[in-house]
Structures are given as C-alpha cells and as structure tokens.
C-alpha cells in the first residue's frame, strides 16, 4: 500500500554538515517509536538549494516546507504533523519583510529546474527512484529508437552549450569526436569543480548521480566510445560515495557494463580522483592527470575531441552539461531550445552567495536578469545596504555592476560586459566590500593554483598580486593602474591555457568599473569600503562612557582607560581587527 506521508530530508553536504544526519536518525527513531513505519516514508534526498536555511525537511503531500530543522524537532514533526496533520508554524520559512511564515517561498518562484529536476525529489542512493522519474529512459530511447547520428542531430538542434564556463556547443564537440576514426574513444566527465564558493556540480552528483552516468553512456553510444571516466576531486567524499554506489547499481541492472539492455552496446565508467588542483579543471590538464601525469595543460589544437586521453578522441563535458542530456533526448530538442535566449538555450545553475538573504543553489532559464536573481530569488541584500556588484565566473570572471542589473544573463551578454558565465558561482557584494580586496583574493587564488609551466601566468599573476597587495596597504603608486592593465593584457594574450588567459579578468573588470576606488586607494590612501586594514584607523570619540567593553575584547590589549572614563586606542599596537568597533554599543568608535 502507498504511504500516507512522505518526509523528505535533505542529505546534501550543506545540510548534513548541519546535523542533518542526526535529524534523519532522530526522525527514524520517532517513526519506529510511534509504530508508523508502514504509513510514513522517510526519504533522504539531494540538495533543495535553500542551503542558507538548512537542514530542510519537506512533508508530502501537504507540501509543508520546514527550514532550520534540528534533531530536537523530530518528535514534534512526527507527533503533530504526521499523526495529527497539524502544520508546525514555527518551522516554516518566514520571508524577510513578511508578517507570517508560509510554504510559498519566493526563492522558488522564478526557478526552472532541468538540471536539478531530481534533486530534493528522489533518494540518490536508490536507482529505482531515478528510474521511476524516467531515469535511463533517454538511454533506452537512444539505443532502441535512434541511430548515433539521430542523437547527435538532436543534441546539436537543442543548442545546448557547455556549462563549464566557455559555452562551447556540446553537439559540435561530440561531432568532432564522432567524425574521427579510432579503435578506442573516451567519454569524460569534468567534476573538478574548483571555483571558490561554487558547488553546483557537487550538488548534482550528490543529489542525482545516475543522470550523469546515463548521459555519459548516451555520449558513448553516439561517438562510439566504450569507456568513460569521471574526474572528481577527492574533497567531495559524499559525491564520490554516491557515484560509486550508483555505478555499482547501474552495473547490477545491466545499464552499464557489457551489452546494455541486451544490445551490443557496452559502456563502462570509472572514477578518477583529483587532488584538488584548480588547473586540473582545464581539460588538457585534466586528461594528463587521468593518465597519471602531472596536471599541466598542453597547447590546443589538437583539441581533446580529436586527440585526447592517451591520444584518442575524447568528449569531455562538465557535470551540469551532462545533466541536461537525458532531458534533451526525452523532451526533445524543440522543447529545450524554446527555453532561454537566442544564443543560450536551457537553464543555468548558480551558487548564490555573499551579502544576500537567501544563499543557496538556484536554477534559472537563460536570459533571467541579475535583478530577478538578486531581489526576487535571493530576497535582496541582507545588510539592507545598496548593491555594489555581483562577481560571476569565479577567478576567471568579473563583476556585474548596478547599471547592468537588467541585462539578461547569457554567455554573450556577460562576456560583453567583461564578466563570464563561468561554472556558476555568483557572489553578491554590497558597499562594505572593497573591490581591491576581492580582486586580491582571486589573484591570490590563481597565483596559488598556477601550474607554473608558462611565464605569463606564473610571473604575470605574481606581479599583479604584488601590485594589488601594495595598493591595499596604502603604498600604491599612480602608475600602478597602467601597469596592472599592461600585465593583464599580456597574460590574456600569451598564457598557455584558460587559467592564465583569464586570471587577469577580475583585475581588468574591477579596473573598468571601479577605477575610482583604485584611485582612492592610491592617491588618497583611503579604502572607501573600510576593508583594507592597513589604511584604517580606529579612534574613540567623545561618546565613550567608559563601559570597558572594547578593552575587554581587544585581542592585543591596546585599549586603555579607567572605568566610566573615555578610553583611548594605542595606534602603534592596534592590529585593526575591528573587534572594538563591532562590540561598542554607543557608536563611540570611529573607523576611517
């Protein structure tokens, strides 16, 4: 008999790390104690996307959406919600600015889920649930109703482009590999997600691993490959566990391995774990790493589609791209190409983070504007201060400023304003964020991750970083701006791979839109956002009543004064940590 209620508990990394596992166990215990195992099904699902409010629990069929649920809430959920059918109001999400909580959450209104279709619906550890949601139906359709050419045409017609960042048409890439005669070809999934703050791929692999396996098998059938590799970083243990389990289940069912579904098509997938080097997300470096060599890029052409893994034609796509493939085949290229803009079809998943109310994982149709993402889905800036910029594309990307809030987001429009789609990290910043500080952060990252093979990247990146560091310490010189531009340009033109070619993007983009802020740092020696510590001074004004709160939190004991008398800060000792500033209740500390 069917169950009366379903309790979906998020088991993504974000929720699991927030006592999600203990919550699941507590719910299981309560269900057993109440003796209602046959009436309620407890389901472990993938990411709901609403990560800032996790752990998430959803009750079906009532559709009650509970946020920030802890193990201690388990008893109430079972006794009130499940046994008596009462909504637990205190666990519902209350949107900022609204009086009462509800299940109707603005976060989901403008979202459209293709890639994340099964996340938060199925249990990723049970293959049957994936199959029930038309899983392996696209593979079935390809094997029995379509020739490899049909599949290729369908993918081409859909207009699907690579979601890893550059946006190369997927069908064209497959076509290159298909056209080459070779005794062996390979299919590779790039799951080496490395942008700071981005976790789209991890969530897909954790929440719906089979969709990637199915898509890779379809590509294998199309180009004539019998072997696939998933290159995933070892820092994603949960995703690795679920992938391994998924591969095992698919093999048992004969959906991977020899003679799939009784046809003469065979396809096998293995995992390869990366050690977390950012450059290994670059496809030629990734392939070198799979081969057991040091992860360093080689010049292209030849492209991997023609000469890739062990010199054989290799189709390599990003996790999110793979997750689109089964849907394209099942719903048809026509359906898919109706979504999105003229040149960018389908949807894009973004990891929305920074100064925003609803942080989390979102999927929107291409062409959605930044304003819709930040204000409608993200719920606006959490500090209430004005929006300053959104950083997309991670260390290879750039900033989108307030005047571009209404630009429809697709590959071309982002490129035109000096940013890029990237893999989907989106960091929202308000006026308390210093653009030099942010740029320095990204440069530090790419300098650290540069493989060192080519000089423009190795030396150029370091030089840019040194200049930025100097500027942030109040030692900038007027010609620094021009120097940054020159070095950035050289890196862009002369670097060997994507990492170096794009490493200067954050610099170029912030220079373009925030040159004033650079000048303020260099000429006036001030940081308008108050972020660059070296340029800050904290002083105590006459509002001080001598409560001693600041003196007590000061980690270096540089605040002196008698009780009930104004205090003073010893500027020589001050490390500018800002603890006193945030502790003072009387606005008696000036920052500037």
């Amino acid at each position, binding site marked *: 008999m*069917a169950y009366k209620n*379903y309790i979906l508990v998020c088991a993504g990394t974000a929720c699991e790390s927030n006592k999600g596992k203990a919550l699941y166990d507590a719910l299981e215990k309560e269900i057993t104690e109440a003796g209602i195992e046959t009436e309620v099904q407890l*389901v472990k699902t993938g990411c709901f996307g609403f990560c800032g409010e996790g752990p998430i629990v959803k009750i079906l*069929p009532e559709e009650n959406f509970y946020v920030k649920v802890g193990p201690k809430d388990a008893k109430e959920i079972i006794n009130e919600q499940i046994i*008596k059918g009462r909504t637990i109001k205190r666990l519902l999400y209350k949107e900022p600015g609204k009086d009462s909580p509800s299940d109707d959450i603005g976060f989901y209104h403008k979202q459209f889920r293709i890639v994340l279709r099964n996340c938060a619906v199925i249990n990723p550890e049970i293959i049957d649930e994936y*199959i*029930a949601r038309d899983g392996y139906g696209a593979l079935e359709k390809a094997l029995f109703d379509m020739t490899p050419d049909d599949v290729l045409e369908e993918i081409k017609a859909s207009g699907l482009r690579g979601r890893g960042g550059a946006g190369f048409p997927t069908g064209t890439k497959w076509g290159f590999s298909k056209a080459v005669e070779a005794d062996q070809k390979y299919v590779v999934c790039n799951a080496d997600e490395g942008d700071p703050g981005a976790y789209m791929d991890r969530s897909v692999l954790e929440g719906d691993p089979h969709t990637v396996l199915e898509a890779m098998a379809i590509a294998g059938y199309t180009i004539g490959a019998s072997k696939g590799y998933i290159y995933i970083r070892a820092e994603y243990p949960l995703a690795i566990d679920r992938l391994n389990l998924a591969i095992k289940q698919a093999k048992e069912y004969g959906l991977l391995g020899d003679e799939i*579904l*009784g046809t003469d098509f065979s396809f096998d997938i293995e995992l390869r774990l990366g050690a977390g080097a950012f450059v290994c997300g670059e496809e030629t470096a990734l392939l070198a790493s799979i081969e057991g060599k040091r992860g360093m890029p080689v010049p292209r052409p030849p492209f991997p589609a023609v000469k890739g893994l062990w010199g054989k034609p290799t189709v390599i796509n990003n996790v999110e791209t793979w997750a689109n493939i089964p849907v394209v085949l099942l719903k048809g290229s026509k359906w898919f190409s109706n979504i999105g803009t003229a040149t960018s079809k389908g949807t894009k998943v973004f990891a929305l983070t920074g100064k925003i109310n609803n942080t989390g994982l979102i999927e929107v149709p291409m062409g959605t504007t930044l304003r819709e993402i930040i204000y409608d889905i993200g719920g606006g800036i959490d500090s209430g201060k004005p929006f300053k910029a959104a950083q997309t594309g991670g260390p290879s990307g750039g900033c989108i400023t307030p005047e571009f809030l209404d630009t429809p987001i697709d590959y071309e429009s982002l490129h035109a304003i000096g940013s890029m789609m990237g893999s989907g990290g989106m960091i929202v910043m308000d006026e308390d964020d210093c653009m030099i500080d942010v740029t320095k952060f990204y440069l530090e990252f790419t300098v650290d991750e540069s493989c060192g093979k080519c000089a423009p990247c190795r030396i150029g990146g370091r030089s840019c970083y040194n200049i930025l560091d100097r500027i942030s310490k109040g030692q900038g010189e007027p010609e620094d701006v021009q120097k940054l531009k020159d070095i950035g340009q050289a890196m862009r033109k002369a670097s060997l791979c994507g990492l170096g070619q794009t490493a200067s993007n954050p610099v170029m983009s912030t220079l373009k839109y925030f040159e004033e802020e650079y000048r303020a740092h260099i000429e006036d020696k001030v940081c308008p956002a108050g972020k660059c510590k070296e340029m800050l001074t904290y002083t105590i004004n006459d509002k001080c009543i001598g409560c001693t709160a600041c003196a007590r939190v000061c980690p270096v004991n540089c605040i002196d004064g008698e009780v009930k008398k104004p205090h003073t800060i010893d500027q020589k000792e001050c490390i500018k940590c800002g603890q006193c500033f945030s502790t003072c209740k009387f606005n008696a500390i000036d920052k500037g």
Partner: protein
Amino acid sequence: MKKLTLDDLRALRNSKKKAMSQRDGEAKSGEVVIGMGTCGIAAGAKSVFDAFLDEMEKLEITNIVIKQTGCMGLCFSEPTVEVATENMPHVVYGNVDEETARRIVRDHLTGTALVSDHIFDKPSMDIIEKGGK
C-alpha cells in the same frame, strides 16, 4: 541481480512510478482532506484513510492527493472528508466509513456522481477556502 532487458526496465519503471506518484512534483487536479483530529481518529479516520489509498491504487487514480487535517469542528459527524476535484462540486462528507470511502473514490473521484447520502455540506467558497486551508 539479473541484468535488465528493455521490457524489464519498462516494467520496473511503471511499477515504481505508481509507488512514487504521491511524491512527484506533478500538479494534482484535486484533493481529499481527511479530518484526523482526536475525534476523527476515534471515529475510525485511520481505516478510512487506508480505504482511500487502497481504492485509489486499485483504480489507478494518481492525479488526486490525499491529505490529513485537524478537527473541522464537526465532531459529531466524524470521520469527515472534504473532497475538492475539478468539474465536481466541493463537498464535505460526514460519517464516512470504509465502504463510503470506497464509494467516494469510485463515484466522486472518477467524476461520475456524488455520494448523496453522506453529504454533510456543500460549503460556499467564502466559508471554506479552496484547498481546505
């Protein structure tokens, strides 16, 4: 585990689809809300719930969702069941037992007839909002 053939896969998908039908995100075109307050449960609402699930499974009705709610205040006529489906009047049934539940599924949910002898009320929309909330 035996390897699947095409037919096996299709059969597996169909059987699992049914099991997941209450859980998938597809739009439902109507709902049955069963009063499961203390009064309702004491009067046998639990077995009524089971009867609904069982009969709907038999008739392969998947577009209707069954929910439970608290006491409607009609304790004297428990178990009460509110049914709201497309193209049929919005009805509250009273004194529903297992057999009546099966009749509601067979007649009302299939859109052919109301179970007249158990109608408690046909509330106007301004008294009880659609969806029973």
